[in-house]
């Protein structure tokens, strides 16, 4: 990405335009110069951070990484995160629900590995839920990565 300062306003482009007109004329086939400078985008965690307005630093355009304003309360964030966890666990349990339903209907016992996997999922859910509840900052909740499951 590149950018140029036009009368005080910094305008960004994915690449140098094929045609560019300024006070000196209409320019074709430009590859660099003419006021265009590279844009360096710093890495940031979009869950808790965002980019400031673009600015020129050391001959490149770049951004400051600033904290994102988080409007939800800590409790709301925890509730949301735990809800996401339950949704993930629920979708995993759903894959083997039919074993349990069949056992209730016909008495055919579900395989032990299925029973164990489901129990393990619930244990993990409880453990993770406890960890989330113990978090003390909004950032910690937002950056808490829920595990991925792949129960067949």
């Amino acid at each position: 990405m590149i950018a140029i300062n036009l009368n005080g306003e910094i305008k960004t482009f994915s690449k140098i335009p094929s045609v560019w007109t300024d006070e000196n004329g209409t320019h074709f086939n430009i590859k660099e110069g003419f006021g265009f400078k590279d844009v360096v985008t710093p890495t940031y965690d979009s869950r808790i951070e965002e980019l400031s307005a673009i600015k020129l630093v050391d001959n490149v355009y770049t951004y400051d990484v600033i904290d994102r304003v988080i409007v939800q309360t800590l409790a709301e964030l925890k509730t949301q995160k735990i809800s996401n966890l339950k949704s993930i666990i629920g979708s995993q349990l759903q894959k083997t629900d039919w074993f349990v339903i069949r056992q209730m209907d016909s008495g055919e016992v579900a395989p032990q590995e299925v029973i164990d996997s489901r129990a393990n999922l619930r244990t993990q859910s409880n453990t993770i839920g406890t960890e989330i509840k113990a978090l003390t900052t909004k950032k910690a909740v937002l950056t808490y990565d829920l595990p991925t499951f792949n129960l067949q």
Partner: protein
Amino acid sequence: MAKQTIGIGTVANDGNGDPLRTAFTKANENFTEVYADGFTSYARIADEFKTSAALTTEVDFATAQVFTKTLTAAATLTFANTGIGMVKDLVISGDFALTLPSGTTVAGVYDGTVSNLIQIVVTGATEYWYSISKSI
């Protein structure tokens, strides 16, 4: 019809000129041809509309119709003797930046790897439209 020249003798009143009626008949026939449709032909067009010239940095609209240049470095071209309605053609090649006087509207993309035909249409005192075609 070839142009008919009125005979005027060698010196005044030498009796060798065309009679008056003959002279004006030639004049009328010449004008009849000039005013007839189709009189203007490519051969009668001025050189500035049918010649090609190598460019340095100035595109002089009064000198040629087609201007050619191979860029060996970034180049800035200027225009001279432009007039509203004039259309000129630049055949430019070379993978370098090319700057022309500010154009109000531009179509096409210059490609430094091929030959480019840049057509300039003068639409105002300092208003130009550029369109670019490329060889394939």
